[in-house]
């Protein structure tokens, strides 16, 4: 009946787990991998776009800054005359342009011959001649000039903004030195991640601002692509053992290359984190699917097991019912065949008694004949009890089911049977727990339990402490009634045949062997089951399980 027993269920369980995992985990993995690939390509462009746009804005702000410095120096140069500045206004001018931030290191005035006419600042530069320097030549030629970073007379890297002022026939130059540290900080304000930095190299590739990791001021950067280009350029370079993203753009004036660089691994770290999170989530998904598969498979297998068990039970019941039905049919035929000769015997003994009553014979003989004929009559009654039992068993007198309170039936019959039990010296007790109503014929219920209780009383009759208990209770939605005796018990070899028709252990003439068979048939008809458990020397328990009335059941023929 079962699907190959416990092993079959295990195989079924395993197959189910694998199948559920396959249908849940495979799509999960496909989606995760697709996401991974998509994410990887997307992220690459996101990194590049991020760097590019950052640098574009940054370039604009640096250009604006340099332009504002140049404009400031130019404005000052044209606001004052050489005489005013030399006369002491340069100190005031320096104070004004310094404001709160130390943008400038110093400021000076250089004559048309390159002589340092006036200087305000930390270095002792008065009297120096700049005629031969690059920037002097440039500013004389162009009027306004922003130099590259150079060492100069100070011996420290700096760059200057110089403006030529035409005054009368001659000219003079206002020159301001920009604070390299301030400018470096400004340039490096745009930083990305942990390893990102921004700096400037000139057209020769020399560092023009301070860097954190790349190199020192004025040292060659080694950056390979120094040809001016338009817009933003992003490239990946290997420096030493590390890969870097280099994002570059050229400033308009001076022609400096603004470089922002970041280690590739650092740039990708959000991506890596995302991938890790993705993998963890996928793993959690797989684990979840695994748990789900096990849970679902287990419940499915359990359901199948239960269905199998129910099927087995049903089949067993059908077989048993079939057997009972066949026996029932046979019993009916048998009873009918016996009834006819019984009727003849009964009529004959009546006739014999009639005759004996009037015949001219000795009174002793008459008494003897009447007595014997009477005994024949008694035996006929005995046979009649058997045939009627058989017919009852076969025909199960149809009575209509109605809503019945089983406890009431039990209480009632206990009251009636207690009288008989008392005669036999047996204590009959009831222990009835509240029960739901059930749908059954009261007659059938009475027949079942009268039979069981009578049997139990018979089992303990004459024992000094004979006791029969009727116990009812609700057990998981099923009504259970135990009829318990503390009699001699039933030997195991008899337990299996106890419900078969004509099985009896009572002395000849005291039992028909039909009582329990009828009980069995009736309980089955009520949709219940009857079981027996017994220990020799301790007693026997008959357990009847019956279904409660279905919710909303319409009792049929409730009123007679």
């Amino acid at each position, binding site marked *: 009946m079962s699907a190959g027993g416990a092993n079959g269920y295990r195989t079924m369980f395993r197959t189910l787990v694998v199948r559920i995992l396959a249908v849940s985990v495979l799509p999960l993995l496909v989606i995760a991998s697709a996401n991974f690939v998509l994410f990887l390509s997307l992220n690459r462009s996101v990194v590049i776009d991020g760097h590019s746009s950052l640098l574009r804005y940054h370039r604009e702000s640096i250009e604006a800054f340099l332009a504002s410095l140049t404009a400031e120096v130019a404005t000052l140069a044209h606001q004052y005359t050489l005489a005013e500045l030399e006369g002491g206004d340069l100190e005031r001018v320096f104070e004004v342009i310094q404001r709160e931030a130390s943008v400038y290191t110093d400021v000076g005035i250089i004559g048309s011959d390159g002589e340092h006419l006036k200087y305000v600042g930390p270095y002792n530069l008065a009297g120096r001649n700049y005629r031969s320097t690059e920037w002097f030549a440039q500013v004389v030629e162009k009027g306004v000039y922003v130099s590259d970073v150079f060492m100069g007379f100070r011996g420290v890297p700096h760059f200057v903004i110089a403006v030529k002022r035409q005054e009368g026939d001659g000219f003079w130059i206002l020159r301001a030195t920009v604070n390299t540290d301030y400018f470096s900080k400004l340039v490096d304000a745009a930083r990305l991640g942990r390893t990102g930095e921004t700096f400037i190299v000139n057209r020769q590739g020399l560092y023009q601002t301070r860097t954190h990791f790349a190199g020192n001021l004025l040292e060659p950067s080694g950056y390979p692509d120094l040809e001016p280009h338009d817009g933003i350029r992003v490239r990946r370079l290997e420096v030493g053992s590390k890969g870097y993203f280099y994002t570059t753009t050229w400033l308009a004036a001076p022609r400096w290359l603004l470089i922002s660089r970041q280690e590739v691994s650092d740039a990708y770290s959000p991506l890596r984190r995302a991938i890790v999170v993705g993998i963890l989530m996928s793993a959690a998904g797989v684990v979840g699917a695994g748990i789900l598969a096990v849970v679902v498979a287990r419940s499915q297998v359990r359901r199948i097991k239960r269905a199998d068990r129910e099927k087995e039970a049903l089949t067993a019941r059908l077989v048993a019912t079939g057997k009972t039905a066949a026996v029932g049919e046979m019993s*009916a035929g048998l009873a*009918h*065949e*016996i*009834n*006819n000769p*019984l*009727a*003849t*015997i*009964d*009529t*004959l003994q*009546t*006739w014999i*008694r*009639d005759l004996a*009553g*009037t015949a001219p014979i000795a009174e002793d003989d008459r008494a003897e004949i*009447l007595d014997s004929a009477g005994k024949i*009559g008694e035996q*006929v009654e005995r046979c*009649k009890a058997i045939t009627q039992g058989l*017919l009852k068993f076969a*025909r199960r*007198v*149809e009575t209509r089911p109605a809503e019945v309170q089983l406890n009431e039936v039990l209480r009632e019959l206990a009251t009636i049977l207690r009288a008989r039990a008392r005669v036999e010296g047996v204590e009959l007790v009831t222990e009835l727990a509240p029960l739901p109503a059930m749908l059954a014929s009261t007659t059938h219920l009475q027949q079942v339990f009268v039979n069981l209780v009578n049997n139990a009383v018979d089992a303990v009759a004459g024992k000094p402490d004979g006791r029969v208990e009727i116990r009812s209770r609700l057990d998981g939605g099923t009504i259970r009634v135990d009829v318990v005796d503390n009699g001699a018990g039933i030997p195991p070899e008899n337990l299996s045949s106890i419900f078969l028709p004509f099985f009896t252990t009572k002395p000849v003439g005291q039992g028909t062997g039909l009582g329990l068979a009828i009980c069995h048939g009736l309980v089955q008809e009520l949709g219940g089951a009857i079981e027996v458990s017994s220990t020799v020397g301790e007693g026997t328990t008959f357990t009847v399980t019956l279904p409660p009335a279905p919710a909303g059941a319409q009792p049929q023929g409730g009123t007679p």
Partner: protein
Amino acid sequence: MSERHRRVDPGPTPPRVLLVDDEALFRETLAKVLRARGLEVRTAGSGAGAFDAIEAEPADVVVLDLKMPGLDGLATMHRLREIAPGVPVIILTGHGTVDAGLTALDDLAFDFLLKPVPPDRLLEVILAAIAAGRTPGSGRTKGDR
């Protein structure tokens, strides 16, 4: 002389019973027992025999077996209704099932008795059937109780 059984008061005419059963020993013994109780009993071993007997001489009540070779009890009863309307019929059979009993009563049998029935009990039913005024179906001992 012990009178262990009831005797019918003879009156002007004793009740006439037709006893139909295919089992001769039972039929004839029962006839003797009933006669000893003051009834006038005739017997027949089959449905056909019953028709002959009742045509030859009327009866006050018919006691009829259900299972007989040839015409069975129910068919015999239907035929008797035509030949002798108003004569109550008591079914006395060893083959009683609830269905057979109900059918017989629905077909206006006076009563339905399952063998073995003590002859004295049968006598009571016979007398009740006659007392019911020969009105078929009106004097059912079961239905009207």
